[in-house]
């Protein structure tokens, strides 16, 4: 990989990671304390089958405070990868034309 493409990838990944982080953060801030539909569905299931007991627990317990940073990391990963792939696809087509 040439230095020029390497730089393009790093720039695209950084920009995508920042955009992904900002997007995830602002979505969470806007959502605030609104209840997620996953929780609402769980509540409905409990009303329909009050005797049902969940038979497995998540592998790790994540506190409310730690959840947001982890989602931001996921957003950063997605943003970085999306940005690099879009940049490469666009450059490939530009070079071909």
């Amino acid at each position, binding site marked *: 990989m040439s230095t020029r493409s390497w730089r393009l990838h790093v720039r695209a990944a950084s920009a995508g990671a920042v955009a992904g982080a900002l997007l995830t953060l602002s979505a969470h801030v806007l959502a605030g304390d*609104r209840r997620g539909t996953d929780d609402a569905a769980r509540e409905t299931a409990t009303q329909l089958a009050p005797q049902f007991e969940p*038979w497995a627990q998540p592998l790790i317990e994540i506190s409310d405070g730690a959840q947001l940073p982890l989602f931001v990391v996921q*957003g950063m990963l997605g943003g970085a990868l999306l940005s690099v792939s879009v940049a490469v696809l666009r450059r490939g087509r530009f070079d071909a034309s």
Partner: protein
Amino acid sequence: MHIVEGFLPVRHAIGWTVAALPFVAVSARAVSRRVNAEPAQRMRLAASGAFVLLLSSLKLPSLAGSSAHPTGTGLGSVLVGQACMPVMAGLVLLFQAVVLAHGGLTTWGANVFSLGVVGPWVAIGTFRLAERVGASPPLAVGVAAACADLATYACTAMQLAWAFPGATGVTDAFVRFALVFGVTQLPLAALEGVFSAAVWKSIAPLSGRRPALA
């Protein structure tokens, strides 16, 4: 659409995993064949997977006073084909179950079935139908992504209704679960359609090929 860890009866959890696994296996083979046949497809596959990863990290507020995640599988289905999506959805759901405690390993099969199988098939069907009736490609992609989002949540509602029919039966339970998801998801699906069309536009006009058949 993430059914919480341990929140499906054991038989249902096993049944959905058994139902999802063949799709994941065929999908892994489709991805591998696609990359071997045309290495340039790697970037389209990466973009599709990244889009699912990015969109499923967003907890978006809705007009209904609740929040939910978009799905992101509609764009990938149009870009690389619906056959490639189960493995991508499976990986994202595995990441979320293990790292974020979101969804779960026991409900992985059910979640893969709704996110990676039903959503993408509805997306590609809607895309082809929209093209046939003369919709512009960005509009077709947007409508396909929105329908995939709604279909994914409809499938989750069906899975939960089947598992928890209550005293009034599966149909009534489905209506209850569909209302829980539907009211929130309608505006988010429209938003996902717009976002998917925008990303598709940034890639596809330079590709010179019909996206779904690329």
